[in-house]
């Protein structure tokens, strides 16, 4: 059993997907947030809805944790799961090159095609100078980000970390995903979920929800391995799991089999956010922490999987 990690604050933003210039549904909130963050500098205009949901989620997580903004210190960084969320930006950038040759290459859009741009935008706006990482793991990108953050905290490399996932699922991505028979197919949409994480009992800001354990797996028994590793990490026996919630998964049946095979007999609920790929796992974690099973705060197992990147599982317990 390893030390539980406190989820001191969470920021959740769900919104329509969309392209630059299309209303993201958060206009007034976003304007107020940006005005607060840039009151001493030049105004900032975000270029894509994925940046909008990320910035709003970070603002919410830090606000709930009582962290001053902008923070301007290197003891707080961000670990972010990002993958399909920038595919639309990349496609439109390259279509410009195809249409007009070198003149169609936009120097403004090109920097947004690198996966770490969202983390960079967050770091610049919020003054987060600590360890900053971006991981690409498809459906489990947000899970892997949480896993990296949990390990960095437990191993003493950071005292506080923002971690989670962000996405903007566009129509073109869904079409391409369906072409290769992936399970991501759903509705276009955007979303972000980030947690401010700190070690239980450390000087981290107060908050009752806890991430008790995390595990990953890869290969033919990826989900089984992730669940086993996660329960072991949390020190929670299978019989103590009070509920199971799935994020985006590659193969629903293998998840059900793995859960039952682990000796967990409780109901398995699908997260309503499972279409939000990279953000789906953190969103499912937030849902699990916020919705007590059977009226009591019992450990909830969250499971996600990706057809390429393997599986991830976490055990979460909501605050008393």
């Amino acid at each position, binding site marked *: 059993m390893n030390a539980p990690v406190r989820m001191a604050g969470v920021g959740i933003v769900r919104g329509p997907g969309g392209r630059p210039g299309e209303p993201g549904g958060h206009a007034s909130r976003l304007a107020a947030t940006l005005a607060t963050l840039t009151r001493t500098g030049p105004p900032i205009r975000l270029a894509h809805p994925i940046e909008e949901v990320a910035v709003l989620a970070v603002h919410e997580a830090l606000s709930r944790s009582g962290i001053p903004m902008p923070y301007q210190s290197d003891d707080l960084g961000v670990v972010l799961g990002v993958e399909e969320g920038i595919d639309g930006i990349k496609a439109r950038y*390259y279509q410009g090159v*195809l249409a007009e040759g070198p003149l169609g290459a936009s120097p403004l859009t090109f920097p947004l095609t690198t996966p770490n741009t969202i983390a960079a935008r967050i770091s*610049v706006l919020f003054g987060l*100078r600590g360890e900053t990482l*971006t991981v690409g793991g498809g459906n489990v990108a947000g899970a892997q980000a949480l896993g990296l953050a949990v390990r960095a905290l437990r191993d003493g490399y950071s005292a506080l970390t923002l971690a989670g996932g962000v996405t903007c699922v566009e129509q073109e991505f869904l079409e391409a995903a369906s072409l*290769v028979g992936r399970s991501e197919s759903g509705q276009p949409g955007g979303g972000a979920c980030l947690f401010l994480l700190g070690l239980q009992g450390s000087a981290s800001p107060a908050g009752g929800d806890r991430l008790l354990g995390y595990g990953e797996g890869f*290969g033919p028994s990826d989900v089984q391995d992730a669940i086993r590793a996660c329960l072991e990490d949390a020190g929670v026996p299978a019989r103590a799991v009070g509920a199971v919630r799935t994020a985006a998964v590659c193969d629903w049946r293998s998840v059900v089999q793995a859960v039952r095979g682990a000796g967990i007999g409780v109901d398995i609920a699908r997260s309503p956010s499972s279409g939000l790929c990279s953000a789906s796992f953190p969103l499912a974690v937030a849902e699990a922490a916020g919705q007590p099973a059977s009226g009591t705060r019992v450990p909830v197992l969250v499971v996600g999987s990706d057809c390429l990147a393997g599986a991830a599982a976490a055990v979460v317990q909501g605050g008393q």
Partner: protein
Amino acid sequence: MAVPEGVVVTGLGILSPLNPEGDRERFWTSLCAGEAAVGEVRSFDASGYPYRVAAEVPRDRLRRSGSQDAPALRMAEAAFDRALEHAGIAPGTGNPRRAGIVVGTVMGGTIAGERYLRGECAGEGEAAGALENYPLRAIAAGLARKTGFAGPVLTVSTACASGTDAIGIASRRIASGKADLLVAGGVDAVCEFSFSGFSALKVMTADKVRPFSRNRTGLALGEGAAFLVLEREGSARRRGAVMLGRIAGYASRCDAVHLTAPHREGRGLAAAAAAALCDGRCRPEEIDYVSAHGTGTLYNDWMETKAIKAALGSHARRVAVSSVKGAVGHPFGAAGAIEAVVCLLAIRDGLVPPTVHLEEPDPECDLDFVPNRARPMAVRSALSLSAGFGGQNAALLIRWAES
């Protein structure tokens, strides 16, 4: 908290424009001889661009073993296989759940995406094949499937610091006992997508890359892959493996000032370097060699010089610093991993590779940049620095290990 001294490198594999066949000794000999592989772009038609040079691995060497959609995966496979072979690890040995892969990449399978968007895929089957190779995570997944590794399989994308971060993350995972064997490194391939972007940003050279030089003209894209086999020292000793060095410290820091430009004073890079030294309980004066990010752009060269001075203090003027990007270009996600290999080989052979094309030093870059000729010298501790878009900075402390 420090990475314990116990994380060692027991194998390395590298494929670059200097050694397209993947022969690491050829890479090292060519690099130390001052050879440069930057030349006319051949992997796509660059005739419409104002800049037309890059450092490439001839594609015909890669097609022999795979599809044209996935040169990055083919390069990664070549370097990965050689790293395992060098470490003396046969596929299928050990507990697969305790073995894994951490890959740093920026572009991933973008070349497959280009082909899809160009409408070059004949039919849905071919389009599906291209899209299978496209995702960032496809490379790590492909390597893991091939080897049967079932432990951590991670893809890190932190711009030009990706390879360094991948190795750093893997070394922590080994140190904490969460894995027994990790193969970590980076890969990226030259493609029109990235070439057009850097062309639009006007940061590329039209001829040579001249890091730290007054007559610098910018960077050249490069490509390649490099992987290190990491394990705990005890495990390496038990199986009689040769230890090539230790990953003794690692840190990542963000500038938090701009999406593309670095902090002018090198604040983030200095902080990462200082934190990596602290992580490895290493004093600045113990550093013999710094493998610089050294892209050959004005802002990078100036800020990096300042960062090294800030991190090493007065010792900065005594330490040997060199950049290999004049020789191999800038291979993005592979850069940090290639430079980690350079540090390990410098430690092994007591030889520091040169900064090529450094005829006219920039007065603002007033450190010992080992101009044009390799230098024989004992290297027991080396610092490998990486910086990238988004203010990403990472540093690895690599130290000698007694086998």
